Every structure is written in structure tokens, then in C-alpha cells.
């Protein structure tokens, strides 16, 4: 449309307007079509709505002030600062940070250290993100917040369960024939216990913005804003299931995903993306979303998307249509690759659509939609970077990095948006790309090759992020840059179920080979101890486990026996120590949830970790095996080997600060005394934490 043509139309329009007084109804001339009519009407209503909300906010201000005074919150009266920023960089390793700073590669962190302070940060037992960030948030040890691992076992069925959250069906369902009409929302229970520092601050009317801090699904109500993170499921209810479509025959079993065959159609291929179950029907089928791929044009949900080979699409909305007109909405990115002229289409796990969340993912509920409208769609899955896709070869290293940094950019936009809007209070944001990239690229570090510098580049990017964040720090602010744990290489897996079997503590069912996952091959009537997950070993204790055989009085002795035998366990193939030490859990933890803890926490040596089979409750043929997956870095080893980092723009008094000190520090900075159950102390007080409880 040329400029002249536009000008001509504008002239005609003005001409018509100028003639409008000649006897015609003004409404007739003012009306300029439904489209523009909507635009003007919508615009007017928007302004009206905005003014109304602004006015309400202004008018209700005194009422809120009175309410706060009555509610008893002290607000900022005793606050030592106005703003507190926690920049969490999951998995940033103390040794690597120190090395890169020495090499002059992290100028912003070096400046922060020079002008403020730095300490390695003691992590939790075990050194796992859900455990560590829970301690960060609550200031208590795991036996008080009930998070010991990603998974916990069901004491009745021995089946592993997600440790952090439980999603239950709606309580009230109206059944009409085969249809089920939910009369209430699904119940989502947060299994992490204790109170977070942002809840306590909120009680005192100090607002926090908590972005993607792990173990915040489902979000809890408090005075502030929160976006859930780690353990937020995908639309299928899993922790992330990708789909891979190719011209090969489908149906391959892949861990963390599924492979499907593309069906040839004229001019291209078609496929179906598997969705959640049709919950509106009794034993409803899995929903599916058909798509076609013609050349590089993807057609899905009636929309066409042009794909670029080797490049992720933006988030594409996926709408699954269930019975009774119910729509279930998710978002996914697509990645097209051509191999020998045949397409290979990778689809990320289907994330909950932040604009139409199927489950609660933010507080207030509209906060997720607000961020999506303001900044664009973003990943909502707990572990947004698809590590399994790389493990399984569904994507390559470059594609994984591309995906990880897209997530990083999304997080960065959210974080800075929150900082721009926070004059006072707390902003806490955790970036987990730092963790995921180290998991997947540790094997490449310093070994030459195209990905040798990936981890160094990751640390440099993190440093740039710190530099940008420092622009929001003034003399009334405190900035903490911290990580929950460090990193080590993961070369050898240890299957303690196999060791327990070989040493007579575990017995398999008749004719079972131990390869059934989730402890299904174990004969509980003859098994004294078992393992699954990454944290440790469990005693099959009578009166606690449904089929427990070890009497309570004998359990302590068994724990000691196992601790002694496992501490210093050697890997004969490499002639090196695999386990530095095994700790009975009651020597590490105190609290009401001690029974949920592994009875022994295993401190692996650098290079070792629980094997993949052991993590899912299998018994393999050998105790030790090489880790051949791309996932080659880990931190679930002796926590003394993988401390995190703590940088602050102020001098840190504590000699050996730990994650449990962060919540009391946050409270202290706002002049609020820590509740007696909190175990840490402000890091600005000169103190030595009670390390005697944490034997090295």
C-alpha cells in the first residue's frame, strides 16, 4: 500500500468529514466500521478501566494502611535497608568461580568481591537443588522442611513420589453417564513444610517478588508475587516429556520423551502430538493434536508457522479439545532438522500456558498471565531445559544450548522487569540454566573440541548478568549472588541396590532380574535396605514401611553397620574411593520429618554418583558402571566437595555461611527477628555456624 494511496484516502476521509455538517447525522460520520469501532471503544474502555483501577488503588491506600496498622505488621519501621536482591545462579561452583576470577574472566563478580565480600556457601545434605533451595527459603534443615530429594517413597506402596507436590483430582465431580464434570478445581498440595522468609516478611507487610525459586509449586499465598519453578509439571503431568517425530518407525522407548513416526501425506507429513487425558470422560483417552508438516511449514491448530531449520520456533500455543467443550492449553517450541532429506521434528515438553494455566503456577493467579502479556510467553515447566532430549539424542548439543539460553533470556527479562518495579522489598530470582548447562557439558570442559569453552562462556554470561543487576543496587540495597551447590564431574555410577544385594541386605523376588524400575523386583519380606533417588539408602523398617522387617530397635545398629561398610567404599576397576562417607540421617538432621529422610545419606567422591539405574530403583548387574550419558556433571556427592558461592555488596561477617543463614539474613535486614525454629543466623553477624553437627 503506497504512501500516496494512503494520503489520498486520508484526504477523502477529511473531505467527507468536512462535509459532514451538511445535514447528516454526526453518529453516521463518526462511525468508522466495526474494526476501528472496536479499537476506539476498546481503547476508551481500557483507559476507563485503568483509571478506575488506579483510582481504587489510590482511594484504598489509607484503608490498607489502617489494615496494616491493625494487622500488626511492623512494615519497614525497623528495616536496615530498603531493597534486598537475591540473584540465584543454580549450581555456580565455588572452585570454578574462584578460578575464573583469578583468570580475570568474571570482572563483575570480582568487583562485587572487592567492594563487598565473597564466601563459599555451605550447601545441604544432600547437595540437591530442591533440598538446598528449600533450606534457603526456610532457614531450616531438611528434617524441618521435609525435602530430602526430588523423589520420596510412599511408605505403603514403596512407589516413588514427587517429593515437593502432590496433585489430586477435584474433590467434587458430577458424573453424568460417561462424562465427569468437575465441580471444584484439582487440589495441588505443596509438601515442603515450614515457612519461607517471604511469608514472614509478608506478615509484616514487606512485599517480595519471588521468581522461579525451586520448590514453589504450587504457589502459596503471601504478600507479594511469585512464579513457581522446579517441580512444576508439564501439561501431561510429568516433569517434562518431549516428543520426537521422524520418518523412522515410531514407538521407541526413550527416557524423558517419546518417538513417533511421521505419516506421509501429499506434499509432506502429518503427526499427532500426544496431550493430557480427557478428564471430562471416565477413563478418558489421551488427547491428541494433529499437525501437518509441508516443507518447512507447520500447520497446527489451524495456524501456519514457518520453521527455520535448526532454530526453535517461538512458543506456539497448543489447544487440546477435550469433551464437553473443555480446552486444555499448553505451549511448546518446535525444532526442525533435516537428516538425509527426511525431517526430524523435535517438540519440547508441553509447558502449561502461562496465559491460561491449567494448574496454579503463580501468586496472585494472574501474575503468570501478566508476565506473559508483558514479556511474551515463557517456559513454565519446573526443569525448563530439556536435558533428557540431549541425553537421548533427540537434540544435539547446539540445540540444547540454544534452548537453555532462550530460557535464560526469558528469566532475565522477568528478573529485570521485577527489579525495575521494586522500589523496596525483596526480589529473589533463580536462574537454573547455570545448573543444566554444567550437567550436560561438564565432560567437555577443558578437553578441547567445539564445546570445551561452553562452561566458561556460561560463567561469563552469569557475570554479565551480575553486572546488569548491580545497576539496580544503591546504598540502601543489599545484593546477594548465590548458588545452592557447586559441581563435579560424574563419570562412574554406583548402584547401591546391587551392593546391598551382593552383601545380603536386599533380596530380589523369585526369577526377578532387578531390571523392573521403581523397586518392583524387590522381595520386601527379606529386604533390610534399599535405595532409589539420589540422596541415600533407606532401611525397610518395621512399623514404618508397609512391609518393613527391621525392628525399630535394630534399625540404628543396621544404619551404623551400613555407614561403616559404605564409608570408603572402593571402586575396584579404578582402584579409587567411590564413597567418602555415609552419614546416618539422625546425625545430620533434627526435626519432625526425620522419618521421611533417607536413613543414610551418601557422600560420593568426586567423579561418582548414584547410578541411573539405582536412581529409579533398579538392581543392575554391577555395582559400578561408566556414565555414558551426556549428563556428565553432577553435585549429588559429598556436600563438602561442592559448596556454592555467596557474593554480597556488603561485608559478610560469617566465616562459614550456609544456605540456612539466608532466610534469617533476609529477616534481619528488614529488622524482623527470626522465629526460634530457624537454625541459621544473619551472615552479617560474625559467627561460626554449628558445623559440629555436620561432620566432615
Amino acid at each position, binding site marked *: 500500500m503506497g504512501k500516496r494511496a494512503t494520503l489520498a484516502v486520508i484526504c477523502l476521509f477529511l473531505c*467527507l468529514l468536512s462535509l459532514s455538517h451538511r445535514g447528516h447525522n454526526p453518529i453516521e460520520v463518526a*462511525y468508522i*466500521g466495526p474494526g476501528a469501532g472496536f479499537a476506539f471503544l476498546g481503547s476508551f474502555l*481500557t483507559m476507563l478501566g485503568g483509571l478506575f483501577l488506579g483510582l*481504587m488503588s489510590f482511594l484504598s491506600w489509607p484503608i490498607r494502611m489502617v489494615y496494616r496498622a491493625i494487622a500488626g505488621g511492623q512494615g519497614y519501621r525497623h528495616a536496615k535497608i530498603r531493597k534486598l536482591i537475591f540473584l540465584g545462579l543454580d549450581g555456580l561452583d565455588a572452585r570454578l568461580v574462584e578460578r575464573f576470577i583469578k583468570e580475570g574472566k568474571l570482572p563483575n563478580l570480582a568487583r562485587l568481591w572487592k567492594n563487598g565480600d565473597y564466601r563459599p556457601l555451605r550447601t545441604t545434605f544432600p547437595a540437591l537443588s530442591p533440598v538446598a533451595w528449600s533450606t534457603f527459603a526456610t532457614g531450616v534443615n531438611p528434617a524441618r522442611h521435609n525435602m530430602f530429594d526430588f523423589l520420596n517413597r510412599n511408605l505403603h506402596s514403596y512407589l516413588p513420589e514427587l517429593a515437593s507436590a502432590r496433585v489430586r483430582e477435584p474433590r467434587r465431580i458430577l458424573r453424568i453417564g460417561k462424562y465427569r464434570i468437575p465441580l471444584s478445581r484439582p487440589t495441588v498440595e505443596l509438601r515442603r513444610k515450614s515457612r519461607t522468609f517471604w511469608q514472614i516478611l509478608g506478615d509484616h507487610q514487606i512485599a517480595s517478588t519471588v521468581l522461579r525459586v525451586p520448590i514453589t509449586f504450587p504457589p502459596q499465598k503471601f504478600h507479594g*508475587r511469585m512464579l513457581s519453578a522446579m517441580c512444576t509439571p508439564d501439561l501431561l503431568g510429568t516433569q517434562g516429556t518431549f516428543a520426537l517425530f521422524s520418518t523412522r518407525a515410531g514407538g521407541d522407548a526413550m527416557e524423558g520423551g517419546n518417538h513417533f513416526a511421521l505419516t506421509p501425506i501429499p506434499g509432506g507429513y502429518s503427526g499427532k502430538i500426544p496431550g493430557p487425558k480427557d478428564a471430562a470422560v471416565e477413563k478418558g483417552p489421551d488427547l491428541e493434536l494433529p499437525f501437518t508438516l509441508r516443507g518447512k511449514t507447520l500447520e497446527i491448530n489451524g495456524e501456519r508457522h514457518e520453521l527455520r531449520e535448526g532454530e526453535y520456533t517461538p512458543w506456539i500455543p497448543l489447544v487440546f479439545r477435550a469433551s464437553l467443550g473443555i480446552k486444555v492449553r499448553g505451549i511448546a517450541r518446535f525444532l526442525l532438522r533435516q537428516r538425509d532429506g527426511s525431517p526430524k521434528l523435535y517438540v519440547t515438553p508441553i509447558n502449561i500456558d502461562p496465559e491460561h494455566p491449567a494448574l496454579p503456577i503463580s501468586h496472585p493467579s494472574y501474575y503468570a498471565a501478566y508476565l506473559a502479556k508483558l514479556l511474551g510467553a515463557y517456559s513454565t515447566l519446573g526443569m525448563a531445559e530439556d536435558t533428557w532430549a540431549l541425553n537421548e539424542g533427540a537434540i544435539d548439543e547446539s540445540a540444547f544450548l540454544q534452548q537453555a539460553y532462550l530460557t535464560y533470556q526469558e528469566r532475565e527479562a522477568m528478573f529485570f522487569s521485577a527489579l525495575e518495579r521494586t522500589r523496596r522489598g525483596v526480589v529473589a530470582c533463580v536462574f537454573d540454566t547455570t545448573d543444566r548447562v554444567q550437567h550436560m557439558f561438564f565432560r567437555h570442559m577443558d578437553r578441547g573440541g567445539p564445546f570445551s569453552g561452553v562452561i566458561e562462556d556460561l560463567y561469563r554470561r552469569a557475570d554479565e548478568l551480575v553486572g546488569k543487576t548491580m545497576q539496580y543496587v544503591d546504598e540502601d540495597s543489599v545484593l546477594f549472588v548465590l548458588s545452592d551447590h557447586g559441581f563435579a564431574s560424574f563419570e562412574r555410577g554406583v548402584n547401591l541396590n546391587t551392593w546391598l544385594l551382593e552383601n545380603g541386605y536386599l533380596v530380589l523376588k523369585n526369577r526377578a532380574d532387578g531390571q523392573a524400575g521403581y523397586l518392583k523386583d524387590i522381595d520386601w519380606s527379606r529386604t533390610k535396605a534399599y535405595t532409589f533417588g539420589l540422596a541415600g539408602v533407606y532401611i525397610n523398617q518395621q512399623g514404618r514401611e508397609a512391609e518393613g522387617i527391621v525392628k525399630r530397635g535394630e534399625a540404628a545398629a543396621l544404619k551404623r553397620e551400613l555407614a561403616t561398610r559404605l564409608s570408603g567404599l572402593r571402586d575396584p576397576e579404578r582402584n579409587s574411593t567411590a564413597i567418602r562417607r555415609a552419614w546416618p540421617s539422625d546425625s545430620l538432621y533434627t526435626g519432625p520429618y526425620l522419618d521421611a529422610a533417607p536413613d543414610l545419606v551418601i557422600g560420593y567422591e568426586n567423579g561418582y554418583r548414584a547410578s541411573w539405574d539405582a536412581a529409579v530403583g533398579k538392581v543392575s548387574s554391577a555395582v559400578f558402571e561408566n556414565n555414558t550419558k551426556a549428563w556428565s556433571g553432577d553435585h549429588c556427592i559429598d556436600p563438602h566437595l561442592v559448596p556454592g558461592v555467596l557474593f554480597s555488596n556488603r561485608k559478610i561477617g560469617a566465616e562459614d555461611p550456609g544456605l540456612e543463614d539466608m532466610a534469617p539474613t533476609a529477616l534481619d535486614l528488614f529488622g524482623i527477628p527470626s522465629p526460634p525454629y530457624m537454625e541459621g543466623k544473619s551472615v552479617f553477624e560474625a559467627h561460626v555456624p554449628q558445623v559440629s553437627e555436620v561432620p566432615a
Partner: protein
Amino acid sequence: MDSFNALINAGLRAIAAAFSWGPPALSLAVFAVLAGSGMIWAFRKTSDQAKLQAVKRKLYAYLLELRVYSDEPSITWRTQVSLLRANLRYLGLALRPAVWIAAPLALLMIHLESFYSRQPLALDSDTVVTMRLRSPVDGAAPDLTLPPGVELTAPPVRIVSRSEISWRIRPRQAVSGELQFRLGGQTVSMPIEARRDAHFIPGRRVNSALAVLWHPDSPRVAASAVDWIDVRYPDSAISVFGLEINWIVWFLIVAMLAGLALKKPMKVVL
């Protein structure tokens, strides 16, 4: 221009005739739906849909921000400013399609006036016929010949200051004919409708090429001395569910609803 107007009129009459079995609200609704669809299509073609989408998302975001940060007055006020800016941007983006749409829509609505804004003359009621001349009224009044069934109830009145001459007439029976004016050797006609079922009531008949844009119902007056001729018809109203409303309101409502209904199928961001 006369041919162009005649063409449009013929088309509109054909559509109106197809729905003449129903109430006027029905045929007007048909026009409104057609107009709504056309305008939605034109809006999509002439607007920057991507930018509109983006600015709309920002508008929603700022509205939500007022709730998200309701405890922070400084943010609230800043958001108001952002909201205003986004609104202006939105209006700016809507202006171009609005300008493109305005001309054809105005043309259509002017034509539709003949169908819906006037009702035929009532029998046995007086009305005024006015002729404006292009030069001062100084001679005898033009001769007016009335069709059968219409009578003159008062002699012509001259309004010298406006160069106008008016006649008062009264239809005695249903009429669909023409008033004939004889002026300086030229004859000028003006349609007149005085029957119950008339749908098309032509408005003012004009001489000017520009004015015919606004009064397209009849061909231009050929006589150079005449500026326009007008018969004062009673205003019409559309009966919708027993409610008498201005035709333009009904048109607007139906066109808007049609637009709204077609927004998704036609994938238009408004």
C-alpha cells in the same frame, strides 16, 4: 458519478428486495453483516496486525500490573502513564485502517439513508417541498405540476435571503410519482413517495458534483439554475423487538456483532 450512484443503488435495492418479505430491521441487518464482514476483512488487510497484537498485549499487561502492584502507588501511577502511551499507540495503529474503511463505509451508509432514514409521506398530512436556486429569487416562482392524488395546500413562499422557494403539499392518496418543476424553459422532476410499503425514499436532489456524494439517491439536477430540491419526509425508525430505534444504531450493533463473531474465524486482531 450518477452512473456510479445508480449502480450502487441498484445493488442495494436488489438486496433490499430479496428481504422485502421481512421487516426493515432484517434487510438492514443483512447490510450490517455484509458491511461488518467487509470492514473486518479491510481492517486486517490495512492494519499492522503484528504491531496491534503486541500493543494489545501490553495494554492487558498494564491493566494487570495495576492489580499486581496495587500496593505500590508509584508503580500504579507509572503504569497509568504506560497505559496511556500504549493506548495512544493502539489508536495510532487503528487510525490507518479506520481511514481506509471510512470512505466506503460512509458511502454505503449515505446510500442506506434512502432506505431506512425516511418514511413515506403520510396521507392527508401536509409537507413542504423546497427548491434552492443558485441565483437570487427575483422572478416568478417555478411552475409546479403535481402527480395525481397530491394537492397544493398553500401558494409558494419565497425566502429571498436563502434563495429558496417552498410549497406546501398534501397527498390525498398513495402516490409513487414525480413533482414536475418548470423553470426558465427547463423541466426538473423530483420523486415523491406517499405509500405505506415504500422502502426506498430518495432524499434531496442536488446539482453540485460534490454534494451528490452525500445525496446519491437521485441523478443530479440538470437545470443549471437549481441548487437542490428537497421534500421533507417524516423520520423513520426501525422496530427491533418492539423497540423503535434509529436505523444507524441497529446497523452499528449488528455490524459490531458480526465483526466480533468473524474476528476469530478471519483471524483478525482488533
